């Protein structure tokens, strides 16, 4: 059974959406980033997207780029990521790795799957890997019993929604806006349309919405129709502005309250 699916189902049983927070490993350094992830877990996040630093983060906006750049220059790699995975799952949340494809390919796809499972990770989100290119990862994740999360976008055709959701396990990442990561003032209406279309393509998998969520009010809005809410840049901003684990804890409290009052306008 999928670790992510189970946790999201448990949240649903409580009548709420799941909260998934993202932070890259290695900003401002490895220990401080892991400490912040654990703070997220303690403050109520259900799952943590553990970001693998990458030199060419093609779909990330300036906020995430800035943090990741520091980690890349410090030489942060998969070993540090696996350490974060252990810490997060040890703290009681589901650990899912978020990585551009090249760091995984370089580490070795089989080796990555084996080591991730051994560290207690649930699976991986691969933002620049489409199922069409994912043969090796699909085989390795099957063998290791890992979740694999692919993305859908407003521009995805119905046929692609079907093939992408069919290849996914754990949840499907609904990238609600066309664009790069970064907190936005408004969560696009496109999110709801895309969630509905994706659900039609595959009704039996959890749909988590990301790209642009920055506060509890927006989380509440999304929680009305999504199974989970993903927050990234807003967390990274807490770190960039030096508020560290305390800032992350406060933001998590706000977001966790948000996913519990689904649909109640701010």
């Amino acid at each position, binding site marked *: 059974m999928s670790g992510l699916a189970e946790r999201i189902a448990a949240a649903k049983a409580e009548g709420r959406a799941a909260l998934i927070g993202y932070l890259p490993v290695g900003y401002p350094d490895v220990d401080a980033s892991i400490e912040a992830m654990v703070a997220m877990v303690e403050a109520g996040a259900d799952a943590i997207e553990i970001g693998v630093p990458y*030199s060419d983060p093609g779909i990330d906006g300036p906020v995430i780029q800035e943090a990741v750049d520091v980690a890349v220059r410090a030489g942060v*790699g998969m070993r540090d990521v696996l350490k974060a995975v252990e810490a997060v799952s040890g703290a009681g949340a589901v650990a899912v790795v978020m990585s551009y494809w*090249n760091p995984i390919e370089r580490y070795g796809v089989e080796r990555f799957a084996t080591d991730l499972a051994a560290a207690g990770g649930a699976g991986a989100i691969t933002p620049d890997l489409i199922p069409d290119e994912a043969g090796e990862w699909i085989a390795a994740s099957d063998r290791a019993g890992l979740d694999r999360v692919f993305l859908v976008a407003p521009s995805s055709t119905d046929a692609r929604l079907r093939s992408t959701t069919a290849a996914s396990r754990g949840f499907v990442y609904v990238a609600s806006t066309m664009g790069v990561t970064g907190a936005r003032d408004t969560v696009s209406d496109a999110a709801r349309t895309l969630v509905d279309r994706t659900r039609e393509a595959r009704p039996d998998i959890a749909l988590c919405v990301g790209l642009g969520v920055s506060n509890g009010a927006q989380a509440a809005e999304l929680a009305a129709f999504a199974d989970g809410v993903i927050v990234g840049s807003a967390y990274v901003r807490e770190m960039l502005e030096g508020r560290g684990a305390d800032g992350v804890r406060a933001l998590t409290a706000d977001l966790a309250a948000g996913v519990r009052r689904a649909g109640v306008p701010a």
Partner: protein
Amino acid sequence: MTTTSPPQPGELSLPARPGWPDETGHFGIFGGRFVPEALIAALDELTEAYEAMRVDPAFLEEFARLQRDYTGRPSPVTEVPKFAEHCGGARVLLKREDLNHTGSHKINNVLGQALLTKRIGKSRVIAETGAGQHGVATATAAALMGLSCTVYMGEEDTRRQALNVARMRLLGAEVIPVTTGSRTLKDAINEAFRDWVTNVETTNYVFGTVAGPHPFPAMVRDFQRVIGDEARVQVLEREGRLPDAVLACVGGGSNAIGIFTAFVPDDGVRLIGFEAGGDGVETGRHAATITGGTPGVLHGARSYLLQDDNGQTIESHSISAGLDYPGVGPEHSYLNDIGRAEYRPITDAEAMEAFALLCRTEGIIPAIESAHALAGAMKLGREVGPGALLLVNLSGRGDKDVETASAWFELGEEAAPTDEDDRAVEVGRGADPGPGLDTDQQPTEGAVSNDGAVAGPEAGETA
């Protein structure tokens, strides 16, 4: 492999395409599409529109007309016997892409992609650029076809290729200096992809080389293959035989694929790509992707790339902005691995020696990128010996490089200092003006020395 039956009257005759890539853009294990899902619809749209366009007689006619009347094709082939004296007795023919409108081969591809942009009904184009030649070509085509144009260029490159920044702005394009990462071509590509994913409804990404996700490598190859299609006929006509080797510089690899493609089926013809060796591959400061890299994924495709143990892209180094790229097109990786083409590094110093030599012996100022292929001819010629016939792609002209070259050769006080100066001292060149630029040179007949130059305000009176 495409098989061609003899063309019927009124039927198109397209040159045979190589048997690769496959339908999903794979050249063996290389190529493919490693991009966010959000871009797949746009890439599918481009692929479909391109496949329809490339066999559409109306397009082919318009493309041929533009190449002839606007670009000035076919570009000539020039034999350079005095330069060849430094090539071990080999004969050297240059394919003169430097004479194209806008000054390089980049225009070949851009005209095709601009027509495609209009065909899919988009009104804005974006492009990345390194040396600025692709940016200038894109700005040019946008002006010609009434498209709005934004060009991303690494801040470092806007400095060393300032002339081209000015040209793009004169042509009406917006030039955005990129300040992330290494501030060169790789980062300009990242920014262009970010723009594209955000504005894909109105915007087409005019990619400048044979890299990136499918369909770019195959499409850009098809638009650039005119170089080799022409050159093969030209060489056969004048020499009655094929060249022994075809040489080109390789950044992303578009001019090289452009001249190689027609010769790929000619087993006796060696195809050699010259990568930027920077300070020397052994120093780690280079851009020799196939020579010094390993397979991985960058900018939407699997290919050789310069990467560390964590899979992070390593910043490349080259005196030539157009070759200063840690990746390479997937078809080159494939041609390398199947043994059909060879790839070798050329250092900054070797390229600049060849640059100076062509200037002084033949009166042709090459782009520093192209000078890498010229340096390759000097080396290869000495290896293969007298009588060999080498065809070199002179991919562009050197107007954009005069500042860099002046600084390298320490010509004149007005030359802007660059960080190359420090390195020049380190490698012990000191005040040596460099090969081909001896201090006791005789002025060319009719040349005006500095002392005799007429100052601006007086010029009118004496004339």
